[in-house]
């Protein structure tokens, strides 16, 4: 029977792969009253919503620079009639007005060639001197049952008798119905909560998640809308540091970049002028070159950094339950499985077109294993690639789920590249209600949404999915990339590490 399930999984993977790409582009923007007209395109969008599958969509949100030089979030109309799109696109407003989703309306997969859309703001746009429109590709995960836990991984979640749990609703869960399997003997796992309320996002209801890990250029654009004080909190060096200073890396090891190229382009001043940040991934002192690694996953992010970005972008953290739903989808659990649904992995270790929008690797996964950027110390006697790769590095226009290292619903790099912060099933984490960011940080640059887990102490936060340095041992042992692994649940991940990044949802 187990063989039959594995074969079925393989068949499903073969059937559902499509020839898709991203190449998301905004352009040709105009302002007309309170309406922003702009062109948008991306390659091979997909929409399988009517078939019970996922669809991709673009989260659009707007910031404006006021006459005092401060960037503000601009709310958009919550009524569909106030937004307009040419076919094949459709615009879906959100109830809090913090942005809109743009998606391909018709079923199937196809390119969205340059298409004009217009979005209406609820505030007076002419009051701002500059407007920036931001676009993030997301995946809409459908509502439905899924299994939590793989029945094998270290400190993984199971039911009271040790089996994976079928999640069938968003209803509250009694803590007595949960237990921890194969508890970490070296570091005792975080204890489970007595109760998980209705409001805690459990992954049953539909939700959006970023298709890729947060990229370095995304973080640069975020920093470039903050005040000096906020920048200071969200980087490792004061914004008044000299031009060329790498902003995120360990101050005590400033030359250890681990492929992070976020740098100060123009120094800020202690009198309050913010710095301007840019990318210098090849470390040659010239900013924003084609090979400066703009789209590499952002590493060196603390929990405070990630949540600040998500609050600013009007997104939210995802929970560890949602993380497993994204990866496993409707399929049966596989012991020790990675994001692509099997328990074997091929290491991505040799970049080609390094640092460019084409950055990929030369490795091809062996049959039945997925491609991921992880540690390689055992096989090669060294760490191999010491750092992160481009978000979406493994996927091209012919890849299947294994080759792209994708999760069930097409989300990329859920295993490997950078550790991802999630809200843990724990007493602190269970307070999380799924509330989204409002686009506004506190004056110190911290997220300030209720129950998002404290940005400084990170109580209730769990790192999932492993990173570029993660080595892999046998099923049931140290296995960072496994989607149910909770080896590090005892850690309060407060600090910036060369391996930590993440993504958000809504």
């Amino acid at each position, binding site marked *: 029977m187990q063989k039959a399930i594995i074969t079925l999984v393989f068949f*499903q993977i073969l059937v559902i792969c499509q020839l898709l790409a991203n190449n998301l582009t905004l352009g040709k923007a105009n302002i007309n009253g309170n309406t922003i007209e*702009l062109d948008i395109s991306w390659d091979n969008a997909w929409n399988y919503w009517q078939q019970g599958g996922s669809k991709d969509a673009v989260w659009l949100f707007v910031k404006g620079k006021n006459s005092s030089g401060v960037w503000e979030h601009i709310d958009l109309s919550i009524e569909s009639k106030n937004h307009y799109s040419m076919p094949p696109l459709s615009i879906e407003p959100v109830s809090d007005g913090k942005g809109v989703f743009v998606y391909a309306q018709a079923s199937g997969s196809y390119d969205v060639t340059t298409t004009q859309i217009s979005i209406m703001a609820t505030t007076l746009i002419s009051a701002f001197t*500059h407007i920036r429109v*931001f676009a993030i590709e997301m995946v809409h995960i459908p509502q439905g049952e899924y299994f939590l836990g793989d029945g094998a991984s270290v400190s993984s979640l199971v039911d009271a008798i040790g089996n994976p749990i079928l999640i069938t609703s968003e209803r509250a869960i009694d803590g007595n119905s949960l237990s921890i399997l194969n508890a970490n003997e070296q570091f005792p796992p975080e204890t489970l909560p007595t109760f998980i309320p209705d409001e805690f996002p459990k992954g049953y209801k539909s939700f959006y998640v970023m*298709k890729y890990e947060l990229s370095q250029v995304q973080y640069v654009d975020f920093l470039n809308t903050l005040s000096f004080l906020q920048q200071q909190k969200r980087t490792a060096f004061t914004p008044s540091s000299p031009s060329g200073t790498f902003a995120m890396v360990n101050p005590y090891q400033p030359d250890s970049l681990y492929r992070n190229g976020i740098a100060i382009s123009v120094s800020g001043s202690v009198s309050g002028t913010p710095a301007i940040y840019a990318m210098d991934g090849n470390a040659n002192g010239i900013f*924003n070159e084609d090979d400066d690694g703009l789209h590499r996953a952002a590493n060196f992010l603390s929990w405070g950094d990630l949540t600040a970005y998500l609050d600013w972008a009007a997104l939210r953290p995802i929970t560890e339950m949602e993380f497993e739903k994204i990866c496993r989808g409707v399929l049966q659990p596989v012991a020790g499985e990675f994001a692509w649904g099997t328990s074997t992995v091929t290491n991505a270790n040799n970049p080609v077109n390094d640092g460019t929008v084409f950055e990929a690797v030369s490795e091809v996964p062996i049959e039945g294993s997925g491609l991921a950027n992880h540690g390689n110390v055992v096989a090669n006697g060294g760490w191999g690639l010491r750092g992160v790769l481009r978000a979406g590095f493994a996927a091209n226009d012919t890849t299947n789920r294994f080759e792209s290292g994708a999760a069930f619903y097409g989300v990329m790099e859920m295993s490997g590249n950078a550790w991802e912060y999630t809200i843990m099933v724990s007493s602190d984490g269970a307070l999380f209600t799924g509330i989204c960011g409002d686009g506004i940080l506190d004056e110190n640059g911290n997220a300030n949404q209720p129950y998002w887990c404290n940005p400084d102490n990170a109580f209730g936060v769990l790192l999932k999915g492993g990173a570029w340095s993660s080595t892999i041992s046998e099923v049931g042992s140290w296995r960072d990339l496994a989607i149910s692994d909770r080896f590090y649940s005892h850690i309060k991940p407060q600090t910036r590490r060369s391996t930590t990044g993440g993504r958000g949802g809504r």
Partner: protein
Amino acid sequence: MKQHYILQSIKTATFFLMLLLLSTTIKGQASYVGGLGGGYSMVEVTTGTTGIEDIPNSSFEVIIYPNPLSKNQILKAKINGFEKNSKIKVVVSNMIGLQVFIQEFDVASEISINLPFEKLSKGIYLISFQHSKNKITRRFSYNE
């Protein structure tokens, strides 16, 4: 023995047929491909104007026209914020990264770029302008 083998073969064939049917019903859960960049883009609009700019990471700005470009047209670039008596390097590459044009110009408020049309085919091209320590990349489409 032979009957047993035939029975097994029928069972196997039936099993795979069922798999195929099940697979068909689950078709279209997601897609597993990707392309350039990282699923992210941003544009800036200065209010009161109709143009767009990339992120102002540098002190100079470039606007190119005409866009789309047709065969034998001269591509022009308007440049603001440059350092006088300096050079600007222009590189044009196609979407798979192949460079089709590289030339250094004396910087001016407007430069004319004679592209080698014999090397161009219909499609999207990236044109980058490197000046001092800064670089700006624009995109244009070429219609034969």
